[in-house]
């Protein structure tokens, strides 16, 4: 039997795809059925292979596998948690940074508006007070009896004159009287 026919039978025995024409030729070869039977005997030998590891090996390794899996599972959860926390922190930091930048930009724009050069007319208006503006009134210090003013009592403080003022006033009144 040619090698290609034997290989085709071997592949056919393994359930692999074989060219139909080649398979037909291979099956028509003398000794093809015996070859298939030999393949089956060999497979039976492999399947009958009853060698086993030392007692306790499979149980011990299964325990190791479980232990490692549990450890990796815990570690996986921790990593996921750490990634989520990092993302949260990153988003927070990004938000803070964007907010700061926006705030800085806003204040920069506001400063720009204020420092814009004013027109000459505006400057004049601002600097030179209008003539109709009254002069600031003399400051009168509030008296200690301010409570009476607040309650509607006589404005004692406003009527009270200092000695010097009173003297000036009385001398002015005297002078007026003498003149008349």
């Amino acid at each position: 039997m040619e090698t290609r026919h034997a290989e085709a039978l071997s592949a056919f025995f393994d359930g692999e795809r074989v060219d139909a024409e080649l398979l037909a030729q291979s099956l028509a070869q003398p000794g093809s059925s015996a070859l298939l039977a030999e393949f089956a005997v060999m497979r039976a030998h492999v399947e009958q292979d009853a060698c086993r590891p030392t007692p306790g090996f499979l149980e011990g390794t299964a325990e190791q596998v479980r232990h490692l899996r549990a450890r990796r599972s815990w570690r996986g959860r921790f990593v996921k948690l750490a990634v989520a926390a990092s993302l949260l922190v990153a988003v927070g930091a990004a938000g803070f940074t964007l907010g700061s930048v926006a705030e800085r930009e806003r204040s920069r724009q506001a400063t720009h508006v204020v420092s814009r050069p004013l027109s000459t007319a505006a400057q004049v208006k601002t600097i030179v007070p209008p003539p109709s503006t009254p002069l600031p009134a003399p400051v009168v210090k509030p008296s200690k009896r301010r409570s009476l003013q607040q309650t509607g009592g006589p404005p004692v403080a406003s009527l009270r004159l200092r000695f010097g003022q009173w003297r000036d006033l009385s001398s002015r009144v005297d002078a007026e009287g003498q003149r008349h």
Partner: protein
Amino acid sequence: MAASADELFERHALAVYRYFRRMTGRPDVAEDLTQDVFLRVVRSIDGYQLRNREVSWVFRIARNVLVDHWQKTNPAEVAVADIEEPAAEETQILALGFHEALRLLAPGDRDVYLLRERGGLTYQEIAQACETTEEAVRSKLYRARRQIKRLLSTRLSAGGPDAG
């Protein structure tokens, strides 16, 4: 849904162990390598893709472990496989002869043969695991079978494995 590492161990540990035992001929090494395979399975199960058959995936890891082992040792040095005592004498002779024949195969042919017969991998899966073509797998498989048959015939006609 993908199987867990525990389930994969339950389903394939023994097959993987027997693959290693026949490939190395040493029970202690086979145990070490089997352990190594399933620790790797746990580590890489997240990358396991459902489109692959799980047995193919496990045996692919097993083969990588074996290649790593072979890099440290000589693959040609395969100890005489110690098989368990079969009940009948005729069966024992056949089994001894078969495992002796298996031991005498070239490592590459034995690997392909066991991946097919022990792991149940398809030609395509074996080709992927061994980084070769399906045609090469087909040739190696037939070559392995032919040699096993020839060695078995020689042993049986000589009267048993110790006669030659």
